[in-house]
């Protein structure tokens, strides 16, 4: 019993070692410059002038977040595009489903992707109407 | 004609709806119009009851065919209206079936089905209750006018009518008990309606506590019925709670022919008052019943009765009797009813004269087959009834409070009804119910009349403070006279016929059978009571309405006849009090109608119809004697209380035994005036020892038990304060705790596995 858990403990140990190692290496080898700006908790241009427990204005990040979102969209579209014509892609999956007597078709796949795109488009409309793209 | 089941459900549903509406809308919307929902709903309920009664009457006249013929067995009509199952605990009753019934043993479920049930007895009670309640509600609209709790009053009255109609229509001992308590609660609420008055609050409490004693007995009786019969239902049903008459009839047939249903849930569960146990009707009935007995008692032979007799039977009956004594104010639990007169007078008329207090009589009538199995129980019922009747009449002789005179007379008349129940013959029970029926009208009339007087006299009810009111209040005077004549048993008013029927029924038991001697004593005591009744009734009547006109100061300018909303019900009731007894007696329809109740049909089935028809002729002398007795009573009252009161003074002085001061406390006059010292005796024997005991236990509880409990009670908060210190608000710690928790669990698992 106990031996079976050995890999688990090894895993835990390895995880701990990795994280601690990274921290300690950074501490040991990293340049340690000190200064008022460097010691600020938030280095990205926001002045920490108030209590940390408040909702801060994310205007600065909004565009970045929107970009990340639509970037992810592309990530999902790539595999679809590849699988579309690939011999082991959608056609193979539809055939396999047919063998299992499951109602699955190319149109369903297409529909699913379109729903995905529609949701993203709605998200675009939403952020647009909320004025995210207006730079002040 | 009408769907009987719908009617049966509508009858309680309408007052319940009125109760809810009045409670919700009364304080803000309806205000001084709060009587409308109650009056409309109770009247609607009365119409439904009347239709129901007619329908049942028609069915009796011409036994129907088709599906409803299965409802009718031997002319006995039972119409179940199942609503829902309230509780079902499977296999609660370990029960071994007789060898010739079904294979092996089986269990019975504890199943409380909410089933309403219409038969002649229920219909009669429903008509009576809703009719009197309608009139009382109309009367109250005038009587309670301007009271601060106007809407509250009508809420309670509607709730009471709902509970009372449910009480007489449910088909189960447990639900009977539930609504038995419900009417008790309504009674408590209405006695203490003017809760600002300390007497009213105390009277409410007293009524409630005394009734608890009775209810305790009733509850024990229920437990015993459950352990003895394995069901609390009145009606036969299938083991799965189905009451459909067609399927039940099938199951009965299967039982009779010894077939075993494939499905255990289709087996028959004979109700305590169901057809299976009651089956005695047709010519072959005797034999058939023996067969049933053999089956039901596990083949112990035909001598065994279908109802359990002996010690257990006696115990069941006596416990039920205790309950009935509490609700119907019978000796020794009668002490609450006179005090209950602190409530508003319409309430006294409705609850404490006409309806709720008759619930005990109704219950005994309903369970009369159980009493039939135990002659000792019958004798006890009769003895208690007779004793209470006499005792209450003696007390009523010397009371000066008009409502209290009526209260004691109610107790006394209820005693008559119990006496009639105690005969446990078909004619006796029918006579008792007949008396209950007529009594409801004339006693409600008298109470409402007293209320009218009280209304005019500004709340004064002491008869020494007013007199000669016949010119001021002519309508009240006339109607009160009719009510008094009926109560006194004067021919041809209704009380005459019903009281005569009760005495005749007792007379029938004096010839032979068990306890014949006791019954003859009781018969003579009943005749004596009749004399006293006539006397005290007319004593009160003469003191109030005759003599020199005298009005107390409280009345002020209000000493006038009551408004039409109050005199209207008085007149209606007066007409009925005058004629209903005669009409029903002469046509014989009441006894015939009621005879179709299963419980009563059972009695006449046993008696083999031997006394049917002929008994009117046999008892002519009783009618004559009681007529003259009433006449004598009225005459003596007239002699003593019309005109000069010297004789009264003289007699009371004589009775006070002034010569021997040591005996003054127990002189007949003092005994009567002080209600035979019941309150004092109870105070000394029960209240004071209980108070001492309570003080003792209070000390123990305060110092020993509480100390221990407090000690134990400190443990959880102490634990909690330890836990509290962990809740430090640091999210890092929380995350660590989660991970550590998981790791500890894992470690324990490893340790346990390695062990």
């Amino acid at each position, binding site marked *: 019993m106990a031996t079976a858990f050995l890999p688990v403990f090894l895993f835990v140990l390895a995880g701990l070692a990795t994280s601690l190692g990274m921290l300690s290496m950074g501490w040991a080898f990293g340049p340690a410059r000190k200064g008022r700006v460097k010691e600020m908790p938030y280095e990205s241009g926001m002045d920490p002038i108030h209590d940390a427990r408040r909702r801060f204005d994310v205007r600065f990040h909004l565009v970045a977040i929107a970009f990340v979102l639509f970037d992810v969209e592309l990530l999902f579209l790539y595999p679809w595009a590849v699988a579309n014509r690939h011999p082991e892609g959608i056609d193979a999956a539809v055939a396999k489903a047919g063998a299992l007597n499951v109602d699955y078709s190319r149109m369903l796949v297409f529909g699913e992707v379109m729903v995905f795109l529609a949701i993203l488009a709605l998200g675009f409309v939403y952020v647009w109407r909320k004025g995210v793209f207006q730079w002040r | 004609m009408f769907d009987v089941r719908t009617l049966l459900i509508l009858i309680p549903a309408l007052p319940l709806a009125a109760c809810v509406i009045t409670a919700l809308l009364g304080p803000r919307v309806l205000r001084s119009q709060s009587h409308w929902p109650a009056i409309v709903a109770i009247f609607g309920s009365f119409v439904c009851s009347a239709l129901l009664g007619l329908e049942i009457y028609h069915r009796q006249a011409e036994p129907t065919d088709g599906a409803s013929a299965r409802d009718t067995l031997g002319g006995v009509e039972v119409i179940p209206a199942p609503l829902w199952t309230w509780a079902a605990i499977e296999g609660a009753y370990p029960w071994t079936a007789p060898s010739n019934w079904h294979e092996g043993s089986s269990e019975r479920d504890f199943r409380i089905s909410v089933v309403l049930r219409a038969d002649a007895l229920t219909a009669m009670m429903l008509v009576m209750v809703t009719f009197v309640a309608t009139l009382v509600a109309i009367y109250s609209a005038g009587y309670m006018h301007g009271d601060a709790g106007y809407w509250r009053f009508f809420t309670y009255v509607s709730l009471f009518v709902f509970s009372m109609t449910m009480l007489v229509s449910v088909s189960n001992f447990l639900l009977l008990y539930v609504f038995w308590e419900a009417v008790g609660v309504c009674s408590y609420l209405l006695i203490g309606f003017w809760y600002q008055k300390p007497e009213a609050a105390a009277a409410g409490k007293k009524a409630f506590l005394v009734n608890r004693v009775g209810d305790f007995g009733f509850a024990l009786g229920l437990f015993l019925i459950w352990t003895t019969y394995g069901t609390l239902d009145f009606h036969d049903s299938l083991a799965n709670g189905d009451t459909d008459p067609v399927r039940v009839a099938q199951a009965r047939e299967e039982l009779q022919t010894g077939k075993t249903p494939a499905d255990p849930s289709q087996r028959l569960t004979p109700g305590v008052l169901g057809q299976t146990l009651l089956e005695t009707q047709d010519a072959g009935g005797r034999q058939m019943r023996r067969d049933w007995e053999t089956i039901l008692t596990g083949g112990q032979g035909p001598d065994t009765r279908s109802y359990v007799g002996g010690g257990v039977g006696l115990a069941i009956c006596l416990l039920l009797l205790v309950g009935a004594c509490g609700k119907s104010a019978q000796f020794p639990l009668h002490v609450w009813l006179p005090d209950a007169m602190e409530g508003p007078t319409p309430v006294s008329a409705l609850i404490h004269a006409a309806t709720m207090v008759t619930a005990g009589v109704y219950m005994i009538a309903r369970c009369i087959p159980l009493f039939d199995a135990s002659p000792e129980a019958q004798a006890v019922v009769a003895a208690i009834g007779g004793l209470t009747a006499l005792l209450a009449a003696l007390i009523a002789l010397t009371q000066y409070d008009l409502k209290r005179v009526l209260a004691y007379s109610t107790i006394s008349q209820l005693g008559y009804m119990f006496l009639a129940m105690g005969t446990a013959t078909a004619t006796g029970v029918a006579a008792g119910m007949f008396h209950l029926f007529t009594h409801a009208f004339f006693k409600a009339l008298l109470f409402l009349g007293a209320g009218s007087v009280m209304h005019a006299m500004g709340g004064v009810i002491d008869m020494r403070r007013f007199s000669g009111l016949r010119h001021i209040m002519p309508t009240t005077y006339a109607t009160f006279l009719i009510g008094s004549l009926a109560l006194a048993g004067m021919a041809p008013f209704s009380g005459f016929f019903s009281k005569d029927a009760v005495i005749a029924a007792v007379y029938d038991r004096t010839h032979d059978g068990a306890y014949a001697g006791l019954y003859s004593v009781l018969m003579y005591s009943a005749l004596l009571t009749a004399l006293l009744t006539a006397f005290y009734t007319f004593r009160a009547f003469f003191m109030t309405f005759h003599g020199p006109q005298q009005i107390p100061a409280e009345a002020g300018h209000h000493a006038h006849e009551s408004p039409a909303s109050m005199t209207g019900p008085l007149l209606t009731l007066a007409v009925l009090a005058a004629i209903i007894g005669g009409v029903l007696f002469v046509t014989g329809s009441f006894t015939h109608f009621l005879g179709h109740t299963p419980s009563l049909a059972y009695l006449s089935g046993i008696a083999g119809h031997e006394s049917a028809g002929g008994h009117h002729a046999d008892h002519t002398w009783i009618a004559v004697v009681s007529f003259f007795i009433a006449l004598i009573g009225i005459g003596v009252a007239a002699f003593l209380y019309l005109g000069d009161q010297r004789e009264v003074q003289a007699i009371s002085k004589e009775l006070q035994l002034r010569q021997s001061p040591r005996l003054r406390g127990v002189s007949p006059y003092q005994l009567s005036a002080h209600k035979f010292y019941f309150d004092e005796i109870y105070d000394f024997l029960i209240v004071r020892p209980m108070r001492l005991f309570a003080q003792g236990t209070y000390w123990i509880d305060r110092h020993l038990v509480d100390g221990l409990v407090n000690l134990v009670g400190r443990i959880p*908060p102490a*634990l*909690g304060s330890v*836990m509290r210190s*962990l809740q430090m608000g640091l*999210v890092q710690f*929380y*995350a660590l705790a*989660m991970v*550590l928790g998981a790791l500890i669990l894992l470690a324990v698992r490893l340790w346990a596995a390695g062990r």
Partner: protein
Amino acid sequence: MFSDTTTVWVLWPEIALAALAVWIYVGNALFRPKPNTQTRLGWTTFAAAAVAFAGFALYWHQGGAVWRQSLVLEGHGPLAIDYFAYAMRTVALLAGFLLVLQASRAGENELVSEYLGTLLLAIVGVMLTASANELIFLFLGLEMLSIPTYVLLFLGRRDGATAEATIKYFFLSVASSAMLLYGFGFLYGMAGSTSLTEIRAALETSSAADGGLMTMAPLALILVFAGLGFRIAAAPFHFYAPDVYQGATHANASLLSILPKIAGVVVFVRLVGVTMPALGDFAWQLAIVLSILTMTIGNVSALWQTNLRRLMAYSSIAHSGYMLIGLAVALAASPAEAATGGLSSVILYLFVYVFATLGAFAAFTYLGAKDREVNRIDELAGVAKTRPVAAAIIAVCMFSLSGIPPLAGFWGKLALFGNAIRLATNTESATLQWWFIVLAVVGVLNAAVAAAYYLRIVGVMYFRTADTALPSQGGWGAWSAAAAAAAMVLAVGVLPGRLFDNAQRAELAVKGIALPEGLSQADAPTSLAK
């Protein structure tokens, strides 16, 4: 494995609800980016109608079929379409409807569409979790609940306490999701499949032949307990609850005490109660230990609380402990045995708990105002005089939570303790007896302790006089939600039979046991329209 058209067909109430939620975001952004009170009313009505529509759609479309259990996919799809899933989806929609009503004035006007849309998505998350029969789908359902919950917590109020509470919840929730996923990883590794049906089969076949990868099963179980224990706030994963509840608004606290609880219990039932009984003694012993720990910590800590939401948080923790009793019963009874009542009592208890808690929170919401919430218990003093109906609702809910008959809570506790004791009396194994008797005794003691703080609230309302009147501006929505929940509690209390039947049916369904003759023929709603 495939999300075929049947999946879409079955899930269309969820899909419709999600689409309507999206429409709330986008529609509001298109027409009136800065809503006012009127638009707020409009969108609240729209959201309530959307939930109601989803509910009716579910009922008319699938009610009859799952009632008769004629629509059960054979385990290989990502969905479990059985009466249990149907019942839990219904409960989620019922609770969701009341939550929408309750939130009719919560939060800020400008963000009303965000609040309502996100709330709807959270409900969708619970519903998806209820249908999941596959690890990935299950996890997605849970995240579909968690992520909207973070947003909702933020939207509640604009102050430091709320932000702190939200951040705490966010971090800890992520940590718990990680543990849950870790556990899922082990399960997948052992069974080679993400389908719960196949995992169950793999666990059952391997429990006979001890060894190999399967020895990891207890580890997976612990991790699953850790992940789900956070959702239902079971010790030692409960620490977040008091802080987060206290920082949230009443509306959000009620959401937190209800939606994750439903989802967590659903997954506990399906993933642990049904899939893992093959794990043997360890599973039920773990459930018992956590149950005892959870209810004791919850109840004794609640005794000290003066903050209403903090108290309710501990109450929520304690009730999770009670529900674990039923889980332990289900795990301890031998798998072959048909209906042990363990799972059905959990389902029953969940239902009862959800509505009593919701009623109390909605009444608190009603009694407060947007800028002045009822925070301390003392503030409830004299409510019985000033707001008698709200006080009565709170009292009913408190009595139910403490399990006083004849309210719904009594039947819940009766079912749980009754089944635990029945198991203890029916078993041969002395160990089992001992454990369950201890469990039942601790449970009953806890119930007694719990009564103290619930009744204290009632006592404050009824026996103390008010210093200042409460604003009572939570809106009619909150009032009617509270009243509906209290009515439900009363109705179930008076007529528990139907609920018992349904819970039993759900247990049979989730275990894949054919219905007995009498049950399957019972009156069904309309059939599947396909």
